[in-house]
């Protein structure tokens, strides 16, 4: 390799930039490549976030996304992305990371304690279904994506991206009422699918 040639492609952040552009164009493989690169950053932020949340109980979820993106992509990247792309990618990333994580963990614990992959301990999130787990949610969300891409996107933005109804409406450029309505039905659908007999992993 010629040491005097700028190595734009080898630096990880250059990669991130390119991958991000590809993700926002809907390139799924780019998301896969992007995930490990932001994993550690997310991990570190998660720690900070947890500490702060425990102390102040006030942090907005979007603050974490903002922080993540500031850290990973830099201020200039925010200008480069429009707001919708920005949050959209954030939410997808979060979903990807959590699912990968759950999957890795599930694999390593296969045959072991199923609760390890379950999100049961945060039962409140999933309402009265402590056994529901993230992988199952991921699977039924894929079905919803087929059935109703708009609803699926709302779920991703709301749940994985942490956006409010208003923020989701703004990002998707649709009305609050639509978001509210579609969100409610989507939740009912997901819940219904998740509680269908034989649907657990």
């Amino acid at each position, binding site marked *: 390799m010629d040491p005097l040639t700028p190595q734009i492609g080898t630096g990880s952040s250059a990669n991130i930039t390119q991958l991000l552009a590809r993700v926002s164009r809907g390139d799924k493989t780019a998301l896969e490549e992007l995930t490990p690169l932001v994993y550690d950053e997310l991990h570190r932020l998660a720690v900070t976030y947890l500490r702060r949340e425990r102390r102040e109980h006030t942090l907005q979820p979007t603050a974490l*996304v903002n922080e993540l993106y500031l850290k*990973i992509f830099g201020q200039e990247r925010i200008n480069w992305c429009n707001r919708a792309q920005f949050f959209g990618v954030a939410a997808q990333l979060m979903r990807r990371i959590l699912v990968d994580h759950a999957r890795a963990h599930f694999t390593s614990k296969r045959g072991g304690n199923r609760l390890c992959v379950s999100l049961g301990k945060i039962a409140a999130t*999933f309402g009265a*279904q402590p056994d529901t787990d993230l992988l199952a949610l991921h699977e039924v969300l894929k079905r919803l994506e087929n*059935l109703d891409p708009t609803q699926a996107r709302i779920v991703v933005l709301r749940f994985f991206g*942490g956006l409010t109804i208003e923020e989701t409406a703004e990002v998707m450029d649709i009305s609050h009422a639509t978001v509210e309505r579609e969100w409610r039905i989507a939740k009912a659908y997901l819940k219904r699918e998740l509680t269908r007999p034989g649907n657990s992993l």
Partner: protein
Amino acid sequence: MITHDNWQRIKEIFDSAQKLSAAERPDFLDHACGDDTSLREEVEALLTADASNEDFLNSPAYHFAAEILVETEFSAGQEIGRYTVLCPLGFGGMGQIYLAEDAKLKRKIALKFISQQFATDPQRVQRFEQEALAASALNHPNICVIHELGITETGRHFIAMEYIQGITLRDQLSRGPLPTRQALNIAIQVATALSSAHASRIVHRDIKPENLMVRPDGYVKVLDFGLAKLTEILPVPETPLQASKNVTTEAGTLMGTVKYMSPEQLREAKVDERSDIWSLGVVLYEMLTGSTPFEASTPNETIAAIRAAQPPSLEFSDHIPGELRHVIGRALEKDRDRRYQTISKFAADLKELQAKLQGQSTVDLTTVDPLSDDDQQTRRIESSGIFTRIKSQALYRTEFLLSGIRSHKKAALFTGVSSVLVVLLFVPAAVRNFSSLFNSNTVQSKMTSVTNAGTSVCSAISSDGKWVAHAEERGGKQWLVLTDTATAKSSEIIAASEVQYLGISFTRESNYLYFTRLENSRGMLYRLALSGGPPVKIKDGVDSPISFSPQQDQFAFVRHDKNTLFYSLVVSPIDGSSEQILATRQNGDALSIYGPAWSPDGNLIVCPIRSWTNGFKVSLIAIDVNNGREKLLSDQPWFTILQIAWLDDMSGLIISARDQATAPDRLWRISYPDAVSQQLTSDLADYRGVSIAGRDIVTVRNDWTWDLIVTDSTKDSAHPSTIASGVGVPYGVTWAGSNRIVFSAMAQDTLNIARINSDGSDQVPLTVKSKDNYSPATSSDGRFVVFTSNRTGTFDIWRMNIEDASDLKQLTFSNGNFYPTISPDNEWVAYDNQTSKQKSIWKVPLRGGKETKVADGYRMPAFSPDNQFIAARYDLESGTTDVAILYAGSGELWKKIPVPNFDWQRVQWLSQNTLSYIEKINGFPNIVSYDIASGEKKQLTYFNRNRIFSYAWSPDYKLLACQLGTKTTNIVRIKNDK
């Protein structure tokens, strides 16, 4: 079935239905779905799901993502190669760091996982590895040691490195700028590390506060040598626009280190040593002012400021000396050719400044003293009230000043002895007599470390200063190592085995090494030829290090018969073939098992002795080799004296000794023949052992750090919460009610009592500047704390109010009173008296009154919960390790309990029928319960620290507060310039 075809219809019906009341819905659905039962089923199922769906997915994934991710990337117990993950330590710029245990070497290490993003280029990884290992191989005490570079099965690169207890300089700076001296101290230590690296052509490239660890004792370690290789900016054409763009991409967003980068680093990849000089200059500036010199709101502006043709004026406050500003100015020259050209020159200027500052104040930098409080920088490290302190000037090893000698005016001299058993008893000892702090006799010395693994036992230096032989210990096994002091190369000369090395001596020509070690409690002397060959057994029954006669035809040692407690000073020809007994002691008096010292003129052997005449003391005696006549060297009483050694010119001895019970073992110089004692070390470390070569002293430095932890005894004790920590040796912890803890630890160089909430909040000192105050015990109503204090010159029991330290009252006046405890009915305070050879238990009313003896022959009393019994230790000298249970009223013996007598711990009650005590299990002290009726024992804790200093059960016996200690012992060499 829901399908694409019917989904829109389902949605519409659902939406309309959910707006209706439950009663209206059936009719509506009848109408809307008509005959399509499948459609109706789906809608109803959705409505049912919706009814209980209020919380479902309402909390965003981030809430638990954090928990999940944090918890499980690597979890406790997970094995990575030979390392077992214990807990996460933090998240550095380059990846996550975990505390782990090396299963093979049984030591704690830090595991740093390199972020994937930095490990994508194998060439970079390789460059990083080369450099990290090269820096680690320097074996410099200020450079964090790397044990291994590895890769996990899943392809994660990791670094296994020395675990450093401490905080990053970044953490420390988050509490504000540092005092000038402390900043200088840290900068000098970093410069010393860099100078060693630069000498091997290794440039750090990423010096910043995040990469500098500050230990509680003030010692600094530089981390992450070579890591910059993973992220270094590759060469780019010299156009400002492009250069700054690249830096922003790489450093500004990912590393956040732009602020410390040199102008040339922002311009090109080829940086040299001078770049580190710049970065250290920035760090020094930040330590002094609290912010970096080129700080701007965006990375690009920062880069512009760093690269600007004209340096911004360095805005220092007035308290920073002009010369220091000048030095920083030279480090921050934009043109590297105008900068300091070598780090050593930078370091030299800093040291000179430090010496100057020191001269101005004429006060000891390393000691805390009643008269020099202002000079002592005791800093709270945690704003949450954690009792951690940094002795800011404790710049040991690299450039340590053994100054501000306290001299004991009266000190005529003498001889004394300590035995292992006495080491930690509380016995009245020398009353401090600080004559002059402003002593002109300041000794300027330099301390360097010979070992840094923290596992050294004892050591000796050859008379030419070229070699240091030392014993090391790990996992209950000890081995002998020979280190070349010039190259720091070490080689194992005796393999590890289950023995204890007592002492090592070189012959003058350094052709032989003699060493004594305990093998199954029997002391054996061996000789090892340094030219090679197996060790030769010379003599058994040698229970101390030996001292050669000046002609090296004989040696002297102490023999200790463990059955008869009979001690003798023995002289033997060099081949061990015969022996002559020069002095003996018995009946509680003893000769030091840390060994005698034969005088350079051959006429005297000096040996410490322990005696009980007129109270306990250890003193130095000189024995005439020709006729065995004994002479006291001085009448100064010591609490313990460990090893002693003559100075070659016979102007005096260097001794490792403790002038009072609660002081660390320090080095002292005792002049000969006038026997004036002069204190050489004044920090909180123990210096155990002395070996002399010319002006150099080699000793074993022992640093204690402690954590006060609280754990739920009904749950897993593996994850206690640490509510306070510090350095030195703490003395006592107790509960005051169910959520307050009272404890004693070193603060301001004396032992002081503080109270703290069990969650670590609200720490309040209860004693300040009143000499030593320790062994707190509380009344069950939470009102009073009783404790031992020597504030009036005698060791007596005192009482005060827990809330505000008011209502202070002296309860005993007989001196030598220790280990107070309050009866459950809050009527009595029981304690022990240790002024005479026969220990005894006494009691006095809590409100004050007459001191009454309870029983003879016991110590460390503890009342049973029903107030009927007192559990006590037998006197250590009694030869039994049993615990006695006495009737509280009569003092008569009810029962003997056979439990090991470990450390100097009192037994505690866990219920009316259960006691708890400390026992070493698998090498670590832990708390064990003992059922009095059945004799059944049960291990209650699973700590893996070197020591449990003290512990206490909460009133409901559910919570355990514990002072846990971690010991680091290293060989240090003290070069005396004078």
